């Protein structure tokens, strides 16, 4: 409870928390929140604008090209988008932080190999790599998480390596070595806690990127199978009607925007709270 109070001590962080909790709530209880069946088509009621009425009722966010309720699809789609975003961040963060720490601590041998692999991977455009992997593995939520996780560890590894390189020379690491600390101990107790604030900030940005990547891949038909709605595939569906029915593409866009802003605000605050020096400062 005390920690929660510290988070909301900052107004921006409180807003971030509200947005994040709202989106999470929406994702978890999606089946009970949808006003209509998100898959029910009615071509006679297609492209109804927001607040439009049909015989079935009020469509708060309108309907799409097949007459499906946009709000209902938005709510159902939040599940996949958040699941993919968060899971991919956890996978890429885990590998990226681990490899980054090793590369920074032992920059002669392991570090050179790891960073060489990272450079090679950065040289291959993400979409090409993701397309290749997705084409081989086939479209599924699990494969999408694997693809995004495997292709995005470099962002973590680079930052973590740079920080580990300087931390390694700090005297508290030297003191731990003088006490006889093992390498795993140095990595886990002395380096990891000191890179976590950067990792949290990167993660909050990466969740946003992952949601967008998922959108791109779904847009290309290589993400989630087409029958499962995601925010990305909803934008893809709506792009043909932007000039006549803007809400079909704009509503999932706004949903992505609010989610990303919420997570970023919360991430900023978490970073501050994890730093003992800033822990007692209130904004």
């Amino acid at each position: 409870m005390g920690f929660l109070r510290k988070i909301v001590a900052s107004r921006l962080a409180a807003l971030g928390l509200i947005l994040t909790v709202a989106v999470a709530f929406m994702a978890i209880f999606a089946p009970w929140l949808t006003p209509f069946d998100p898959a029910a088509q009615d071509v006679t009621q297609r492209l109804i604008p927001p607040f439009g009425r049909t015989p079935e009722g009020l469509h708060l966010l309108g309907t799409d090209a097949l007459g499906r309720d946009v709000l209902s699809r938005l709510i159902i789609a939040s599940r996949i988008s958040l699941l993919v975003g968060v899971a991919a961040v956890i996978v890429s963060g885990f590998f990226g932080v681990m490899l980054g720490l090793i590369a920074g601590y032992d920059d002669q041998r392991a570090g050179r190999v790891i960073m060489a692999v990272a450079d090679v991977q950065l040289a291959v455009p993400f979409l090409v790599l993701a397309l290749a992997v997705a084409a081989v593995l086939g479209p599924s939520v699990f494969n999408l998480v694997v693809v995004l996780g495997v292709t995005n560890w470099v962002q973590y590894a680079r930052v973590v390596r740079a920080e580990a390189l300087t931390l390694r020379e700090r005297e508290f690491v030297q003191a731990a070595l003088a006490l006889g600390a093992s390498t795993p101990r140095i990595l886990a107790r002395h380096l990891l806690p000191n890179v976590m604030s950067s990792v949290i900030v990167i993660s909050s940005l990466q969740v946003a990127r992952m949601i967008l990547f998922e959108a791109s891949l779904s847009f290309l038909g290589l993400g989630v199978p087409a029958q499962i709605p995601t925010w990305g595939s909803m934008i893809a569906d709506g792009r043909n009607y932007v000039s006549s029915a803007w809400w079909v593409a704009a509503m999932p866009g706004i949903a992505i925007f609010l989610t990303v802003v919420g997570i970023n605000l919360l991430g900023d605050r978490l970073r501050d709270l994890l730093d003992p020096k800033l822990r007692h400062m209130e904004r």
Partner: protein
Amino acid sequence: MNGAAQPLLEIRDLRKYFRASGSGFFTGEQPPIRAVDGVSLSIERGQTFGLVGESGCGKSTLGRLIARLIEPTSGSIFFEGRDITGLSRSDMREVRRHLQIIFQDPYASLNPRMTVSDIIGEAFEIHGLARGAAKRQEVAKLLDAVGLSRAHIDKYPHEFSGGQRQRIGIARALALKPKLIICDEPVSALDVSIQSQILNLLKDLQREFGLAYLFIAHGLAAVRHISDRIGVMYLGKLVETAPSSEIFTHPAHPYTQALISAIPRPDPDAVRDRIILEGDLPSPAAPPPGCRFHTRCREASRLGTRCMTQEPAWHAAGADHLAACHLVENTGAQ
């Protein structure tokens, strides 16, 4: 090397050459930085060896070599008669219980994400000596020993002042009941008013636990009252070693004389023969030929070109007093 006469620590002809950063495929091999270039010294049990030299002379590198935080290029380190130079990391762990180090910067030497209890108690965890409540009990005892309140046990380093942080660093070094502590300029980052407190603490702990210190400092004034023996280092080499009282009354090497003349004196009317060293410390990648100090030595011209061509050997300048200077050979004990 046996029996009671055996020193606690002995180093022989220790060298550390750092590969120059400019070396590469296109630039060719640059000459290495000779940070420590053939240093031998020994430290007796319960005694303090003061190691003095200006910034960049290699004194901190020497301290880290002895703690095996960096690997020497050549030479050997004997601890209690045992050659620890080639010991593996796991064999070294046992030696580390008796060989600890205190650092200069009390702000960089404590992990900002760990509490005092974790910082000091880490030693017990690493060596499997105590954990949980027993660990806290030991940490509390150490806080008493270094003059900190037990109430501080769960605080983070940033909540302390520089002097208090240095006390935490000392408690960490003491945790394993070492026989030798390398003190790498432990007071030079502290306020003058705090410096003497920490020096007194170190002296008290020495008496209580029978510690030996290698006390590294950049001025003679800092080591004067704590050292039994003093070594003066210049550009990677020792130039003079003598008992503490001897070196202040009969400094033999011109460099030592210059360092002593730099110590401020409380009497404003005293006539001071202040020796000003001209120029900067030469590059340790290309030390001057002959005597390394000749480029800045005011006596060098007295012996013609000898100081510029011939490296001086060790000469006795008194009882238990050695200096590496051609003048000492000529004049004997001054």
